[in-house]
């Protein structure tokens, strides 16, 4: 995985901020000087920490009614984002920040307009890496996992022309797909449906929980179905890149392990600093050749991890289905999972956070 050392605090200028559809917005940014040089080295999957603490709220009638209560909270910490696109030029680097308006920080971002400044700490963490000898790259996106995968898609097309790239995109509903376009009643097949990827020559298949676009069901089920249909397909020559909610990443990792496919997952954790000092963003990882696990830091050791190393949070429904003992045995739950917590959650009939 790739890490560059020229991280710092840089100011970018907003060149546009617009709503693309539903709750999804995108900000175009421009870095100059040292920031342009630092972000020219940005690797897909790396992230930035954005300071939004100085931004005010939009007028109340511009805030979705279900966010009015939550958005009143003040912001202290920076917020992590992964860029959806980065283009390095001779003296400036542009970047696209795709975001979903869902809380007090993102609602404040909607107030930015052309000419405004934003402070970025970055580039941070380790991005995706492209192992040699891969002829097929499968991109797996769940909802707001789209930005780093889009950034990677562009790099793959530009620098690995011999690699065939196909995207599998999942969301709860057609409205929850974080791309520009019209997705309602889209067919199940793999085709040039998602304009942002089609422009790069990358076909995609969509899956939604309610069937409002593409396949009805989980994106990982759609991926498994597609793999089953392939002839002359080599696991060795394939790599999966995934970003999305943790249960989706866990299912992707399981599928990759069953079929012996290399898989990189981009993890997400609540974090304060993003630079390895606050130790908040613990990701439980296996220690090779032992039953022990350690906590690695999402910000510094990740956010992109080899899927074989990560011990995923067990989705409650998995535990419910197979029982905790089997979930642990099959690597679906951590051996150190707090059993009481899981059982308590089951009793209350909750869904695992995602």
């Amino acid at each position, binding site marked *: 995985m790739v890490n560059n050392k020229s991280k*710092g605090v840089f100011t970018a200028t907003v060149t546009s901020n617009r709503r693309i559809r539903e709750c999804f917005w995108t900000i175009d940014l421009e870095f100059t000087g040292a920031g342009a040089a630092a972000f020219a080295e940005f690797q897909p999957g790396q992230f930035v920490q954005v300071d939004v*603490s100085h931004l005010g709220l939009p007028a109340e009638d511009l805030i979705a009614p279900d966010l009015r209560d939550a958005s009143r909270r003040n912001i*202290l*910490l920076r917020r992590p984002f992964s860029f959806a696109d980065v283009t390095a030029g001779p003296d400036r680097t542009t970047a696209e920040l795709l975001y979903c308006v869902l809380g007090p920080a993102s609602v404040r971002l909607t107030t930015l307009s052309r000419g405004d400044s934003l402070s970025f700490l970055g580039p941070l963490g380790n991005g995706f890496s492209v192992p040699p000898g891969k002829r097929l790259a499968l991109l797996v996106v769940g909802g707001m996992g789209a930005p780093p995968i889009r950034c990677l898609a562009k790099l793959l097309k530009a620098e690995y022309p011999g690699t065939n790239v196909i995207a599998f995109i999942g969301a709860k509903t057609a409205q929850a797909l974080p791309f520009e376009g019209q997705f309602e009643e889209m067919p199940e097949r793999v085709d040039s449906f998602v304009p942002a990827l089609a422009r790069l020559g990358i076909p995609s298949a969509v899956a939604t929980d309610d069937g409002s676009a593409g396949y009805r069901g989980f994106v990982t089920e759609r991926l498994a179905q597609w793999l089953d249909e392939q002839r002359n397909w080599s696991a060795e020559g394939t790599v999966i890149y995934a970003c999305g909610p943790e249960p989706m990443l866990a299912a992707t990792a399981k599928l990759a392990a069953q079929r012996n496919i290399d898989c990189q997952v981009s993890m997400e954790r609540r974090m304060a*600093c993003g630079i390895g000092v*606050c130790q*908040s963003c613990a990701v439980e990882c296996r220690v090779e050749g032992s039953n022990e*696990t350690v906590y690695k830091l999402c910000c510094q050791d990740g956010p992109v991890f080899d899927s074989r190393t990560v011990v995923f949070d067990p989705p409650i429904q998995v535990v419910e289905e197979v029982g905790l003992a089997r979930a642990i045995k099959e690597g679906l739950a951590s051996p150190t999972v*707090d059993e009481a917590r899981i059982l308590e959650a089951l009793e209350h009939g*909750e869904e695992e956070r995602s």
Partner: protein
Amino acid sequence: MAKKREVDISVDFAGRRLANPVFTASGTCGYGDELADFMDVNRLGGFITKSITLQPRKGNPAPRIVETDAGMLNAIGLANVGLERFVAEKLPVIARMSVPVFVNVAGERIDDYVAVVERLASEKAIAGFELNISCPNVAKGGISFGRDPEQVKEITSAVRKAAGDRILSVKLAPAVTDISVIARAAVEAGANALSLINTFTAMVIDIETRRPVLANRTGGLSGPAVKPIAVYLVNKVYNEVAKKAGIPILGLGGIRTASDAIEFLIAGASAVAVGTASFIQPDSAVRIIDGIEAYCVRHNVARLADLVGSLA
């Protein structure tokens, strides 16, 4: 980097001359040079490492933090590499730093604290120790030592013997009946500095699931929200214990700007530590140093010591 100093912002801290009164707070700046990409660590008045325990600790499961209005809760659980790896991997880095380094020490039993301090007290690179008897996020040890004056005495005097001629600061928990009683116990047992305050035990609830947000259920509240309480407690301990005993206070709790730091100095702190603010602006500590100097110029404070405890 070095600037011409128009005023003397150096301070005496338990017999050690510090170039300025600004430290990094334990657990917010790593073991040594982690923030070197963002600031010249050697410009600091002092550096305090994250907590070291005798054995390595994995720490708590995630989520370990949650933001609140004007603050954050953390429940890291004293995750650290343990004494052995600290000596092997981190001490050489510390030895290259020119700033006085204090090692924050935590443990479950008094013997654990003593073992860590005994091993490190002969290291030239280490100026002193900060005794963490106020961590709210561990099942054993931590804050349970810091609430009872008899236990504070016992642990402080045991560590004092192990610390030799090094500075020993005891870091106090804020949520106690009378913090001066605890401060006095530490001073009587041989502490030659006091760090206050540590975080407040607190909780944030996810109202959708009716569960605490943190995996540890509770965490320590830090950030601007705690600052006025910290200023009050520093002033109280300065007046009731530290001033008479001639013991310096390291004030911390929600310091984000030079003005915040100056409040602590006026309240009676001889030095200050910057914690949560470094998460947002990694070079906060050096900005605060510059701000303190500018304040002294503006207010004709010739020596920073004149500011300490100058509350009218």
